[in-house]
């Protein structure tokens, strides 16, 4: 299912709706894959597959809302675009509060849908990239010794070498050595880069 190319997953119980949405999505060269039910999607979806999810809010058995909740539960950060019919707006608003990427009322403007889909795909790609980066930073951090980790934390907190030496009861020279080891192991060229690497990582979800 995952070949690296983003896929727009379309879940709608109405065959004409899901088929026509796929048709529309494919018109701009994106890959689309349709599922007739939330269960069918959950049964086949590989979290490694990038893309986004276009979801009908009203479906028998498991509604779009429930599917969205299920994805959140499983910590699958796939961006979700909710499609609503007339009168489902309050539900859609609730979905947005739960972190849905967008909701669109049927019948929707194709331009709006396609633009939002592309944005959702970009977001997904960014998230995947940053989680990749996060993993990299984490991995590098694992290579630090406990002492080096302490030094890193203090550097990130803006402490100077002199202060760190006092904090840890070390000579300034030793702190400098630890610090240069940290920079090398973390692959940071400057302190600014190091701080951004560690903090930026925490900032992004």
């Amino acid at each position, binding site marked *: 299912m995952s070949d690296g190319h983003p896929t727009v997953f379309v879940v709608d119980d109405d065959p*004409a709706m899901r088929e*026509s949405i796929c048709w529309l*999505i494919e018109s701009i060269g994106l890959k689309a894959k349709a599922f007739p039910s939330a269960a069918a999607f959950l049964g086949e979806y590989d979290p490694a597959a990038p893309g986004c999810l276009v979801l009908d809010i009203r479906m028998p058995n498991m509604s779009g809302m429930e599917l969205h909740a299920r994805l959140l539960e499983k910590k699958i950060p796939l961006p979700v675009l909710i499609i609503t*019919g*007339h009168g489902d707006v309050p539900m859609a608003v609730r979905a947005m509060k739960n972190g849905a990427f967008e909701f669109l009322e049927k019948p929707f403007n194709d331009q709006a849908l396609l633009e939002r889909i592309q944005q959702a795909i970009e977001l997904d790609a960014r998230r995947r990239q940053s989680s990749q980066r996060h993993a990299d930073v984490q991995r590098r951090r694992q290579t630090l010794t406990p002492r080096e980790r302490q030094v890193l934390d203090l550097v990130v907190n803006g402490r100077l070498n002199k202060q760190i030496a006092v904090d840890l009861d070390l000579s300034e020279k030793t702190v400098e050595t630890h610090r240069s080891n940290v920079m090398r192991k973390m692959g940071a060229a400057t302190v600014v880069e190091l701080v951004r690497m560690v903090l930026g990582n925490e900032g992004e979800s």
Partner: protein
Amino acid sequence: MSAFHYNTANLPDDLALLRGRVADLERAEAERRQAEAALRESRARLRTVISHTPIILFAIDREGIITLSEGKALDVLNLKPGEVVGRSVFEIYPDVPQVAESLRRALRGEAFSSQIELAGAAFETRLTPLRDEAGEVSGVIGVATDITDRLRAERDLRASEEKFRLLAENVPGIIYLCRNDARYTMRYLNDEVERVTGYSPREFLEDRISFADLFHPDDAPAVYRGVNEAVSRGEPFHLIYRIRCKDGHLIWVEEFGVGVYRGDELAFLEGYITDITQRVADQKALEESKADLEKRVVERTEHLRVVNDRALRMQEELAHVLRVATVGEMASGLAHELNQPLSAILNYIQGAKRRIDAGAILQAELLGVFDKVAAQAERAANILKTVRQYITKRPACGTCCDLNSVVRDSLELAETDIRENGVRLDLSLEPDLPESHCDHVQVEQVVLNLVRNGIQAMESVPPEERVLRIATRRHGEGAVELVIQDTGPGLTVEQSGRAFEPFHSTKEGGLGMGLSISRSIIEAHEGRIWVAPRAPQSPVPAFGGAEFHLTLPVKGGEQ
């Protein structure tokens, strides 16, 4: 002569005696000649016989010199009788060592037969040593029979047998000859039996295994019966049954067999058995795929039935919605239903448009999309048809109803809304109204819709000012009238003129279907519905809102 003393008196007797002796001699001479002639004749006859018999009669002396050479078979060697007499065998056939070897062997005193080939012909030669009075071998006599034809026939026969054997060994099936006993004791089997059953022909021929041992227990009775019935009528038999192979697995075989009769008596069975397991499996697969196909047809039919049921259910639901919801809610449901095909149509069209713009669509693809769009348009039309049928087909279903009870039921349904919005009711229902000719439920929908509209219209006024006045009264001779007034902002002249137009709504998020459908229902009952515009600077502030009227013909009233 001097010794003869003739007694003349005896002379006649002596003469007679002499004559007798002469006659005897003559007779003896004749007999001898006759015998000689007979012998000559016999010899000639023998020579004739020999010269016409396909043999060579020969005699050879100790030195290998041929002393006799007779017989028709000399022709084969291009020799005449006696032609080689006086010549040495060793000279004549120096290239055929067997000749010299055989001769020496016979000269050693052995009598024997052997086969020998000379000049392209084959002979069976019997050599017998001749011995003199002292018992020494003095020569050899021999008879050579030309067996070329016989050998050729034998060779041909062998070749033909070989051919059939090869054929039998190479046919893709078992060829057998067996007794018609309980074990079908085998007399002949080709090697194919081993390939098919795993048992060698030897095992069968030595009765270490029998086909009777291999029959599937369920099939054995049918095999015995089939064979016996066929041979008793003198007909061939054709059987299909299972046998268990040496490795334990079951295979299907097909057998064509026939009885071999000696006179009237059945001597053997012979026939041909082939492994048809694959064929049976193929057939089974075919049947299964047929069954699968049938199953799929059934499933498809079932699917269609489900779809149909769903359509029916949707229709029922829609009808249900029409019954229990207000026309406004009904319209909302309807809008949702219509949204699906309409959205799909839009998607198809926009997707096609983008492809056309990009020059990336085939005509066939486009036509396919047109079909889909058409199908969705039809779907939308069908939804509307269902609604229209419901509204128009049951205008007056024969039930008669009392407008006052319709009003009471509607208010009961709207009770929660009324209470929650703090709306005060001002009812003035004229007692003893004639029954009108209408469907209670449908008119109830209309009234409920008007009541809810009124309540919603008063959301913008303070609760203490929210009054809904509902009145019923006679409207001329043939009709009854209902008036519903609220204390909301009311409708302008312009608004009231368009109130019943579909999709015209003054409410936020309103569909503009409620009044439109209400009008359809009332008009289907041959009634009328209208709204009085807000009076400019209404002198009565309490009733400055909208004022809706509807009339319905009464039962038996004027048409």
